[in-house]
């Protein structure tokens, strides 16, 4: 390692984007497009070519709002209901209104969506009330296409840098960020007028049932750094108790892709080969039904294809085994599973934070602004619910455009040398330790406790035990040892993972009711309590540096949800028979 370990390099940018996966590239691209004179820096922990949740591609849009199939208003209503009413509708509408333009722009860039024989988008009906699924059977090259656009726009791409702390000015506004190189351990200080966080989900929070640290549902590079960055910079996070839990292929731990198989006639079934899910929309309620079936005598749960024609199955395999998680075919072959004959065993994922599928995250408004001036967030880590990939693109674009405008009217803030020094000490510590704890052991222990104590259904006593264990582990962090820059990255990720675990515990204990089905199913408060808890739970760092929570009222709806409409929807999902 070079001698400049302890000398900082400082770089000035107008807009700094942290995370080069899905939302980040769009944010950087749109900021640059809004004003080509800006210095736009895109910082990525891995390499922008293949990073983030869609590193290998994506096999479809789950929330396409395409004229003729769905309207923005209808979409906002449905997401409102699917999230038990706790939404900031303006942000949902901002997404929905730009959804189709984004699809067209991506289509022009060469992203391949399913088209019918006449070349029109072939949107599929999966939900009962709206039609939102646009498959991408050839969606393997999304990242390559984004990367090319970034190169053309001359965004400054900085790979292999992990942002570890945001820097703030005396008045609390954003001042920049500190990052550590995962190859050289070099520290980089970036001053920026605006910072966009797009660091993805917290995918290494729970431990997969396999016990394999890297066998996560999410891309394991998404270790929840964004949540920790936002928290320490003073931004509010919201509804973190609304966990992400997804149905997936057992052991392989990849998505079962019911949205891919669904239009072909495949479905999720119990051991008798029968459907059992009552809930119509992807939600915690659906996951609760899934969980109960797994625990019941009718369990476990399977993905069922064997009733379909061989021609249809071949077509489905062509998508599922090539796009998003292409090693899936190899996994099935290893176990001798053939969709024509066998149902595929499913399970539920470890817990995580991810607005892509739930409603948690760093609080943002309809312009992707967080509660810290000049700080934005987009994608899986921002609080716009049911974002998925398209939401990450759209909200990334919104953040990029707004940040470009913001940076035009503001100056670089003064850096606080104290903040930089403290972060230098924190990030250097594992390298200075000659002996100590390896990151993977500390990580394993945190994540095992997350499974033991935080996994729903939630018991308050277990949560308190977890908090005690986490506090003990926090003391251990100073003993983390890293023999090289790569291990340093892993050690610093452990800090993020522990931050997320503590936030998950605090938010869950604060909301004293059950809501969002399995996501926040409290054993001591099994009922939903709209009188007390029809609100967001905002989590933030208080003056003492500790985690604090407060209620935030749900803003008046801009798209009213009629009672009759809600009842009709409820009729779909409430058991009519036992």
């Amino acid at each position, binding site marked *: 390692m070079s001698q400049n370990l302890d000398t900082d*390099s400082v770089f000035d940018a107008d807009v700094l984007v942290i995370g080069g996966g899905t939302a980040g590239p769009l944010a950087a691209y749109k900021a640059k497009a809004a004003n080509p004179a800006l210095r736009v820096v895109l910082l990525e922990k891995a390499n922008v070519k293949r990073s983030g949740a869609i590193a290998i591609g994506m096999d479809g849009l789950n929330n396409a709002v395409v004229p003729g199939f769905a309207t923005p208003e209808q979409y906002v209503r449905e997401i409102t209901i699917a999230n038990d009413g706790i939404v900031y509708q303006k942000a949902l509408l901002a997404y929905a209104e730009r959804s189709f333009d984004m699809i067209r722009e991506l289509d*022009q860039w060469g992203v391949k969506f399913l088209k019918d024989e006449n*070349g029109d988008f072939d949107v599929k009906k999966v939900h009962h009330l709206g039609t939102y699924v646009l498959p991408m059977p050839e969606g393997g090259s999304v990242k390559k296409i984004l990367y090319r656009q970034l*190169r053309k726009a001359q965004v400054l791409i900085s790979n292999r840098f992990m942002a570890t702390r945001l820097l703030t000015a005396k008045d609390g506004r954003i001042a920049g960020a500190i990052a550590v190189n995962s190859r050289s351990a070099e520290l980089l200080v970036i001053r920026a007028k605006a910072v966009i966080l797009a660091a993805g989900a917290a995918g290494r929070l729970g431990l997969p049932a396999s016990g394999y640290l890297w066998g996560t549902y999410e891309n394991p590079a998404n270790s929840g750094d964004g949540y920790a960055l936002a928290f320490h910079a003073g931004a509010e996070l919201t509804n973190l108790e609304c966990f992400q839990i997804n149905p997936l292929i057992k052991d392989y731990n990849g998505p079962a892709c019911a949205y891919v198989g669904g239009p072909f*006639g495949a479905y999720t079934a119990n051991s008798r080969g029968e*459907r*059992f899910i009552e809930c119509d929309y992807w939600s915690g309620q659906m996951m609760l039904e899934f969980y109960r079936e797994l625990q019941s005598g009718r369990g476990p749960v399977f993905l069922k294809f064997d009733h379909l024609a061989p021609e249809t199955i071949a077509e489905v395999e062509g998508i599922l085994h090539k796009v998003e998680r292409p090693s899936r075919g190899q996994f099935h072959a290893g176990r001798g599973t053939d969709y024509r004959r066998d149902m595929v065993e499913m399970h539920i994922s470890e817990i995580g934070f991810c607005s892509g599928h739930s409603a948690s995250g760093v609080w943002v408004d309809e312009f992707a602004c967080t509660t810290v001036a000049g700080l934005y967030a987009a994608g899986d880590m921002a609080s716009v619910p049911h974002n998925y990939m398209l939401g990450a693109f759209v909200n990334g674009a919104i953040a990029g455009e707004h940040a470009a405008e913001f940076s035009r009217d503001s100056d670089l803030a003064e850096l606080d040398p104290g903040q930089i020094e403290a972060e230098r000490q924190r990030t250097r510590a594992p390298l200075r330790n000659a002996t100590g704890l390896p990151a993977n052991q500390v990580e394993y222990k945190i994540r095992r406790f997350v499974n033991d104590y935080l996994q729903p259904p939630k018991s308050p006593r277990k949560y308190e035990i977890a908090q005690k264990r986490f506090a003990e582990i926090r003391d251990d962090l100073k003993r983390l040892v890293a023999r090289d820059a790569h291990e340093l990255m892993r050690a610093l990720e452990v800090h993020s993972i522990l931050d997320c675990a503590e936030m998950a515990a605090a938010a869950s204990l604060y909301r004293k009711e059950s809501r969002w089905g399995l996501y926040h199913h409290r054993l001591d408060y099994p009922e939903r309590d709209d009188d007390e808890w029809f609100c967001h739970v905002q989590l933030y760092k208080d003056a003492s540096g500790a985690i604090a929570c407060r209620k935030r009222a749900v803003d008046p709806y801009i798209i009213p949800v009629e009672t009759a409409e809600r009842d*009709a929807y409820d009729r779909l999902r409430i058991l*009519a*028979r036992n």
Partner: protein
Amino acid sequence: MAERSFFEEQGVDLDDVAERLQSEDADARRIAVVELAESGEPAGEALLVAALRDPHSGVRRAAASALEQFDGAAAASALAEALLDEDAEVAAAADASLRQFRAPEAAPPLLSLVGHERADVRAAAWRGLRGLRVAATLVPALRALDDVDAQVRREAIGALAYLKDETTTAALIRAGRDDHLEVRRAALAALAFAPASMILEAILDGLADRHWRVRETAASLAGRAGAAGAEASLIAALADDVWQVALEAARSLGRLRAGGAVVALGALATHPVSNLRKEVAAALGEIRRHEALCHLSLLAEDSDPDVRKIARWSIHLIDSSAR
């Protein structure tokens, strides 16, 4: 300060790449091609075109893939030539790249291949032409519907379908009687743009086809096109041996709001395949006839929750339309 250490290099040194492309070592040339491709440098196109003539097939394949980003005449000419490459993987890469193109200027080199002696080349040319949507493809594509090779006929239908030109309707209807299953399916799917009155005959023929996948496509087309005249045949298709055909027929009868289909749809309420029962429940709701309520109340007690949900929703639709 040294920005270079932090950021990826912008652009690429073309002279350096050109020099490496002259290397004796094929692997060095291949690496140069990949770097050029990733740079997105517009001026790199000429070097990539030249690399398509490299003696090493791996280099040619990399160049063919890289050219996908240069949507235009020059790259199209070179890639069209690469469709004839002796190495099948190079030709396949050229084929894939050409399918990304949208610029009309890419058409002439591809049109010059639609009469090529090799059927796979003709088919690839049509695949490339489809996304360009140029009127000049219309006449040769119509002619290609009589090609001896089924794959060529199928791809020519694709190019015609993207044009959505009503004058091609008769030819597409004729293609709907092709010997080859996939050609018939494609032709029927292609007709979705045409007015229902013009394609009714094709739909009826398709519903009587010997292969279930064609019947399935025809049943779907009837609903998409709004072909009310197909109602009786769709009702007959509800009794098809293959449930997938019945499912599409049910969906289309719902779209057509075919009041005459209620009894036949109701008869499927106890069909063993739940996917079909679900579609029946949905169709009965869309038709919005009071007499469907007896079938729907049965479906609302179905063993499958999806069927129950849809049935309840359909009952709600009928109730609220009666008000």
